[in-house]
């Protein structure tokens, strides 16, 4: 079935659009295969609203007399209302939106059709590959190598084709280790600390099962990771009880007797459905009209969203402590190793590694730790906070990461090169995008669908100088230090920039931010060491010869 067959009514005139904090507008509504387009009827300077259908999370229809109202709730949390004259048109539009916003076939999605004139499809896709990362990271060369055993994705379907492994462990052992780990996700290098060479590894749970199976190769692999140093830490993202229970279904944990040099610490993290429901409750609480403080606080608490933020940052802090302060290597895993594992390992890197705090560095981190590492974006981000569809595999772990990064930025506003705007943009793109970056669930799927050949890369486009500028933090001052966020509940806050994004409040904040920008710009213009239009030095330079002259005159 062609996409266009879903469209029974393509155009409606005289539609009224209502948005929060804006006057209602009348204009024409248009449905295309991928977009909803509204444009007001003024000829000159006409205003348009273009919404990706994929951005629409839920719609509600209501009949009022002969006309209908459609409420559109977007995945970026915007809520719109359209008043459409004519009941039939209204129903047609609604059913088109419903059908077209929930397409499942990747190649039918908009990134495969997005062809802006300034971008070409030829050329490398993405920012970096495992091989390139290895080449650039000199500290790895001694003890680590790139293994391409997964080049046909047969060892681990969700891993990229190349991974970084200890030199002394050969590919055969890795294959055995992979068989011993859920989904084949054997321990791979995630980060090597630039100050002491300690590493963060990540994997999925070992398949020890009820009868405590063991795998010599897996043990050897982990032994090789710590390379003679006496201790490593396994941060298991489940409670001890949950880990025990996992054995009943074939999973399990690394037992002390077989992994004698590793110490295991359990930290409970919620996952899957629970986190998705948190998001739903939180968004609901944010739009609660009751204005009662007690009700708000109890709903906020009940959503547990901030508790998830709290645990993610705490565990990341724990990993950083092991690596940075105590000088031990760490292995992080939960069950599948595709969600909380990535959350913790990437947060730990942000805290530890100054390189991951630049715009490029952060995007590379996301590419390495989320895209290439096989976070199932398509499943996790199929729906957002408004959808009434039965939950399948949705889970806003990536949004949780962005929230945690925002908390770090709040506490260290000078340490990140990027601003909140970048996080907001990513929060939007991950659910609906013109670009192919967040399509599919793994490298293998992306390969099969031809994502790299047929779509544009978001990260590359964000790094174009004119675009990147919008996402820079004007106050950025690079620091080499680790930035440990405080995790007292009093230090964590609701991410108003995201959750109250479409309110007047956001407008005031934006204006204040612009003011900060202009102060900083003025500062750079006047005192910036490397600007040519530096007024102060210009004047000084003009003055110097005169002063010299004066001096000579005085001497005479």
């Amino acid at each position, binding site marked *: 079935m062609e996409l266009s067959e879903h469209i029974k009514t393509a155009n409606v005139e005289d539609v009224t659009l209502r948005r929060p904090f804006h006057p209602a507008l009348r204009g024409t509504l248009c449905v295309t295969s991928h977009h909803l387009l509204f444009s007001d009827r003024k000829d000159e300077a006409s205003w348009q609203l273009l919404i990706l259908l994929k951005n629409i999370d839920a719609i509600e229809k209501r009949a009022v007399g002969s006309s209908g109202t459609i409420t559109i709730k977007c995945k970026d949390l915007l809520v719109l209302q359209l008043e459409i004259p004519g009941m039939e048109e209204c129903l047609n539009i609604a059913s088109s939106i419903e059908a077209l916003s929930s397409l499942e076939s990747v190649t039918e999605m908009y990134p495969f059709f997005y062809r802006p004139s300034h971008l070409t499809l030829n050329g490398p896709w993405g920012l970096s590959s495992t091989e390139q990362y290895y080449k650039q990271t000199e500290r790895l060369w001694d003890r680590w190598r790139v293994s391409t055993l997964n080049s046909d994705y047969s060892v681990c379907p969700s891993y990229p084709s190349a991974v970084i492994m200890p030199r002394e462990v050969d590919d055969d052992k890795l294959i055995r280790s992979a068989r011993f780990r859920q989904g084949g996700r054997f321990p791979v290098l995630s980060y090597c600390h630039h100050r002491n060479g300690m590493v963060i590894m990540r994997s999925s749970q070992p398949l020890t099962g009820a009868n405590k199976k063991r795998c010599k190769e897996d043990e050897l692999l982990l032994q090789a990771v710590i390379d003679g140093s006496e201790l490593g830490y396994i941060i298991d993202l489940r409670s001890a009880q949950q880990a025990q229970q996992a054995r009943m279904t074939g999973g399990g944990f690394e037992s002390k007797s077989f992994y004698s040099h590793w110490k295991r*610490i359990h930290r409970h993290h919620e996952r899957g459905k629970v986190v998705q429901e948190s998001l739903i409750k939180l968004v609901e609480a944010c739009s609660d009209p009751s204005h009662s403080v007690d009700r*708000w606080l109890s709903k906020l608490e009940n959503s547990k969203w901030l508790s998830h933020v709290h645990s993610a940052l705490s565990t990341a802090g724990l990993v950083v402590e092991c690596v940075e302060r105590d000088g031990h290597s760490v292995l992080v895993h939960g069950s599948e190793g595709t969600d909380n594992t990535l959350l913790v390992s990437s947060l730990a890197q942000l805290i530890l590694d100054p390189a991951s705090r630049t715009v490029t560095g952060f995007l590379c981190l996301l590419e390495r730790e989320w895209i290439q590492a096989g976070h199932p974006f398509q499943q996790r981000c199929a729906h957002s906070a408004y959808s009434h569809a039965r939950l399948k595999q949705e889970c806003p772990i990536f949004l949780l990461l962005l929230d945690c990064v925002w908390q770090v930025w709040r506490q260290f506003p000078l340490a990140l090169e990027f601003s909140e705007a970048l996080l907001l943009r990513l929060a939007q793109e991950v659910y609906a995008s013109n670009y192919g970056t967040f399509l599919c669930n793994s490298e293998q799927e992306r390969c099969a669908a031809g994502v790299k050949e047929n779509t544009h890369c978001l990260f590359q486009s964000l790094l174009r100088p004119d675009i990147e500028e919008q996402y820079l933090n004007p106050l950025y001052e690079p620091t080499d230090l680790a930035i440990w966020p*405080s995790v*007292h509940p009093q230090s964590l806050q609701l991410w108003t920039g995201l959750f109250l994004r479409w309110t007047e409040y956001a407008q005031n904040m934006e204006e204040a931010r612009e*003011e900060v920008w202009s*102060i900083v710009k003025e500062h750079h213009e006047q005192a910036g060491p490397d*600007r040519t239009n530096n007024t102060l030095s210009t004047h000084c330079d003009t003055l110097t010869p005169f002063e010299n002259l004066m001096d000579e005159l005085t001497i005479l």
Partner: protein
Amino acid sequence: MEHIRTPKVEQVKLLDRFSNKSVIGTLHLTATHLIFVESNSTSAQEIWILHHHIASMEKLSLTTSGCPLLIQCRNFRLVHFVIPRERDCHDIYSSLLRLLRPVSYDELYAFSYNPKQNDQQREEGWQLIDLAAEFERMGVPCDQWQLTDVNREYKVCETYPRDLYVPITASKPIIVGSSKFRSKGRFPVLTYFYQEKKAAVCRCSQPLSGFSARCLEDEHMLQAISKANHNSRYIYVMDTRPKLNALANRAAGKGYENEDNYSNIRFQFVGIENIHVMRGSLQKLLEVVGTRSLSMTDYLVGLENSGWLRHIKAIMDAAIFLAKAVTVEGASVLVHCSDGWDRTAQVCALGSLLMDPYYRTIKGFMVLIEKDWISFGHKFADRCDQLDPDQKEVSPIFTQFLECVWQLTEQFPQAFEFSEWFLIQIHEHVHSCQFGNFLGNSQRQREVLQLKERTYSLWAHLLSEKQNYMNPVYSPSFAESHPVLEPSTQACHFKFWRNMYHQYDRSMHPRQSILKQVLTFKESNRELEGTVQALKTKLQKFGVSTSPLKPQTPPRDRSLPPRPQSLILGAPLLSRKEVQQEEDEEVFGEEAREDAPASTDGERTVEGSSATENGYGELTGSFGSKNEPAVVTLEFGVARMTC
């Protein structure tokens, strides 16, 4: 000094509030301060606690390491000392007990504090705020409002100021009659005049109406207020109490206005709780946020149960109602509660702040406090426990007002000339008794104490370091486009004020400050502009035209100018030894330390990382367990930076 038995104790341990960390140092007791100096010479932290700031002390039972002494301060600092010898602890405790309960006003710090100013400077300090000029700015006296001399000798109302503004049609007999019908004689007077609509905000105390009593003069008084405003046929009477409280007061011969007896009034209850509820609420709040290793759930539940933010919102809602009635409907409003010096002050002051951009400037905010709080007799001495230890009179009413203003600064980052440090500093000094402004309960009492002759004014002090309190993103044009602030009353906009209630808990604060950074930039922009101007003038002297200037040589590298020394947040810790300055240093000194550049030092655990207390977890147990000596000393990181 005769009360100090042990002026100095060594080897005292200071425990961190949220962790197991501690430092050793020496405790000094002076006539005005308790001072702790850390022994470790590299960091040598100093803590100065003014006796007046101490709210309560507790001597805990003796432990193996010594005798614990817990001190809770009114500025929400909490210190926990362990003193090795029980004897010393007892001496310190009993000396402090005497020192922090002054029996007469003369013992308050303000009367001995001397900032090395001469009498003329002192006098000028007191003349900074002129309330007559303030009423003139509002457009009063005018054809409808006049200054009355009825209270010149404090004969009609002891707790009101001498100068009062009333409608021209309110004659002396009416005023006197009305005052007799009002609790404590606090009859309706003008506090703010909204010139644009000629609408007035008046304040008073509750009427002594009981179940049926009425007073014609009082009815005339309200009539006069109503008549003074031609824009509206009615006036609002806001009773800021919950209806139940007002009803209960009727049994005691007090109560509220009966709409049948007063023509053209619209009566409205607002529902702000009384001082006792507020005191209890703050106590609950402090208990919750003072808990060690607090979970997110317990924090949010505790915040809700304390009711604190609900009370803050109730005050804000009342102020918004007031501002709307005046600016939108153009109606005059009469505000009262029971005695008209707590809730009434909160609502009138906050309402005026919403209506008038002037009160959102540094000078204007001082005027506002002087007018609605100091002159109209908010009982600072009782509420802030300056002298008389009647704990039932203590209540954080003024703190709530400051917090409401802070909530507004969060919603409108560009609307205020000052930053939150200004509010926090005022709060600090309301309790410090270092300046004369807030001493006593009424203007009359202040005159008896001769405060203007014997003490210094806080406002002069704050203005002298104004640059520390500036909001760098303040935009006067915002005031033009938003003369009246319309804050959102959605509950999610009411936040916990961490910098107030955890001011001294370093580990909770952001490690870097946008505010400080932007202030620094702005200051240096200003300085550079000055330099450029000076250079231009010089060039002109040489006869060179400065306007289209082209660089003759490529500009050389210039490092950024040094940060202004005076900046609060970046203040170097030079002058900490000076008692006079110690107050400000206390507030911001700790921040300053965190912000010391992280580059050069040998010790890399910079950036305000006292660490430990964290929340990375209950890991101490699981992590540093017995057979792992390598990790026993794990300290769990609080926000900090290391390398």
